[in-house]
């Protein structure tokens, strides 16, 4: 007979090892759809690998791709820690991007020293707003934030289309629905020449480091963890639950907004409706793979960016659908879930204890 028993606390090795094993397992399982698509397996993997590590440019592309994922991953990780299910990072990203386009395309003609922080500030504020509204609806009316944030995503993207065909439209854009370009001084500087990596990455890494520090060592982080782990006991202990939820909502939204700012004012230079191929949603997977740890988010973001960039390159070379990347990422998430279960519980069969490890 199979019995399930809770383990003691998880060891650090397990906490780090699990996501890594899940990631590798998901990559290995990718062989199945590859075979079904008729692609040569070893060649495909080789293509994926060289698509990321094959050249400095390829690697920098991966880093560029990882930048917004770090932001949205942090957004999800912090919110989920408080059991606030922010599925709206995609919409909040676009809110931040719209703010960047609104502020940085010529309304203020000031020096970069002022313009860039202003863009960042407004981008954060816009993103924060995007999450504070659902959080308030949840606190006041008990409206499930999963649904409200999801529906808001659709509303925001429709609003974006309106903005791009109206107020934000580039008068010199030949009729395409896109925004005017960000002023030169408003663009985040590049990290190195001839590569697309920009200072958004640096900001992202700083945010991750700060978030990790605050989560573990600060009073604010303590209260956030308490609220997420047991809201009733936290409330009973005098911790201001609603205030904690609203604060984390603002931070989460702001981080997602920063992803939008980073893509517009760091990478692309202007805003279009297809700015994000689902960074907001992928950020959720990043956060889960990272075990909701900000430091882990960086690593998970790098992994997932590698999968996407590598799969892109492989799919062009091998003719396999690039949706393989989404499939690998989804599989990795399932593996992490299952692995998380195994790490928290031992499966005991019969009389002798064979730890599920």
């Amino acid at each position, binding site marked *: 007979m199979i019995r399930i028993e809770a383990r003691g606390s998880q060891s650090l090795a397990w906490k780090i090892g699990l996501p890594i094993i899940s990631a590798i397992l998901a990559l290995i399982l990718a062989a199945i*759809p590859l075979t079904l698509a008729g692609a040569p397996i070893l060649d495909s993997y080789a293509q994926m690998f060289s698509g990321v590590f094959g050249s400095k440019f390829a690697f920098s592309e991966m880093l560029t791709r990882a930048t917004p994922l770090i932001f949205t991953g942090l957004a999800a990780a912090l919110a989920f820690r408080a059991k606030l299910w922010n599925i709206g990072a995609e919409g909040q990203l676009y809110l931040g991007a719209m703010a960047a386009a609104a502020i940085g395309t010529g309304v203020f003609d000031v020096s970069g020293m002022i313009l860039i922080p202003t863009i960042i500030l407004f981008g954060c504020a816009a993103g924060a707003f995007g999450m504070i509204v659902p959080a308030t609806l949840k606190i006041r009316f008990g409206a499930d934030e999963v*649904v409200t944030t999801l529906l808001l995503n659709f509303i925001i993207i429709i609003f974006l289309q309106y903005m791009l065909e109206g107020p934000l439209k580039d008068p010199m854009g030949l009729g395409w629905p896109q925004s005017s370009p960000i002023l030169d001084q408003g663009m985040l500087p590049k990290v190195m020449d001839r590569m697309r990596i920009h200072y958004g990455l640096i900001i992202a890494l700083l945010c991750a480091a700060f978030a990790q520090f605050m989560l573990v060592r600060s009073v604010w982080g303590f209260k956030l963890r308490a609220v997420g782990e047991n809201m009733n006991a936290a409330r009973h202990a005098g911790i201001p639950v609603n205030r904690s939820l609203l604060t984390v909502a603002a931070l989460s939204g702001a981080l997602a907004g920063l992803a939008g700012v980073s893509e517009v004012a760091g990478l692309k230079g202007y805003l279009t409706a297809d700015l994000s191929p689902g960074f907001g949603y992928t950020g959720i997977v990043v956060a889960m793979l990272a075990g909701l740890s900000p430091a882990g988010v960086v690593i998970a973001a790098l992994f997932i960016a590698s999968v996407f960039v590598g799969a892109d390159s492989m799919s062009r070379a091998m003719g396999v*659908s690039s*949706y393989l990347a989404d499939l690998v990422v*989804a*599989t990795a998430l*399932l593996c992490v879930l299952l692995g998380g279960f195994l790490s928290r519980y031992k499966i005991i069969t019969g009389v002798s204890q064979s730890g599920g490890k």
Partner: protein
Amino acid sequence: MFDILQILLSESFWSASLRIATPLIFGVLGALLCEKSGVLNLGIEGIFVAGAMVGWMAVWLGAGLWGGVLAAALAGALFGLLHGILTVPLGLSQHVSGLAITLFASSLSYFSYRTALPTVSSPPRISPFQPLDIPILSDLPFIGPVLFQQTALTFLALFCVFLVWYVLNKTALGVAIKAVGDNPNSVDAQGLSVYGLRIGAVMAGSALMALGGAFLTMSAFDAFFFGMVNGRGWICIALVIFASWRPGKALLGAILFGAFDALQVRLQTEVGAFVPSQVFLAAPYILSIFALVIAARRAEYPRALLTPWFKGQR
């Protein structure tokens, strides 16, 4: 104003409303069944995609329309089984598991479709369900075009409303499902299987969800294209709360929603000059949020919703 009245009294309007409502009817019934047993199934959006793709693909491969319906339902049930295993015996977070299923089901569907049909510029089409032509009934004034000229899948949806209502309220199985969603211990103490009931309900609910997706590719349209589900799954999750987990109210909510959607399409042509089209596009989602906020306060959630139950832990 007069125009709106004309619209509201026209047959084509109500016929369109019921047609647009059909996938929602399936989706809300499916989510209702899952949640009644205590399991939130956020895999609905992905299962809609999977149902749409599998149903269409089955027809494309020669299985016939009802073969496609069956295939879609089976696909839904399989994803439901996965979600059920993750959330019931393993007790993992229902939110995360559902989202993982949505991602997995969507990406698997898109990948499979692309791999099976790699080089197509415009999506290939099948012969979808046709509006029925029932002797006498289809020719009745007003009710004829509105109700009796729908496709077979719409009738299936309406039948499912009755079926779900009947099972929940008139059968022993329904009592057990309602009980397990309120207090799993009540079911366990009477010798029934909590796991079996919950996983079964989730599988059946997921099959219904998949039918919602299948309607899109086999009745409303005739091809599968990316992004066609477009948030309908999430709208269903909001509507379930609005429907207080009752099949009758679920039907009402879906039809009201379909009516609103049909209205905004028609309104666009009337006032399109003054109001940007995006307002109409966004209206369904805004409406859903409103419905959710209004209903959430007094919502009587199934008491055991979201709480895992483990055998042998007392």
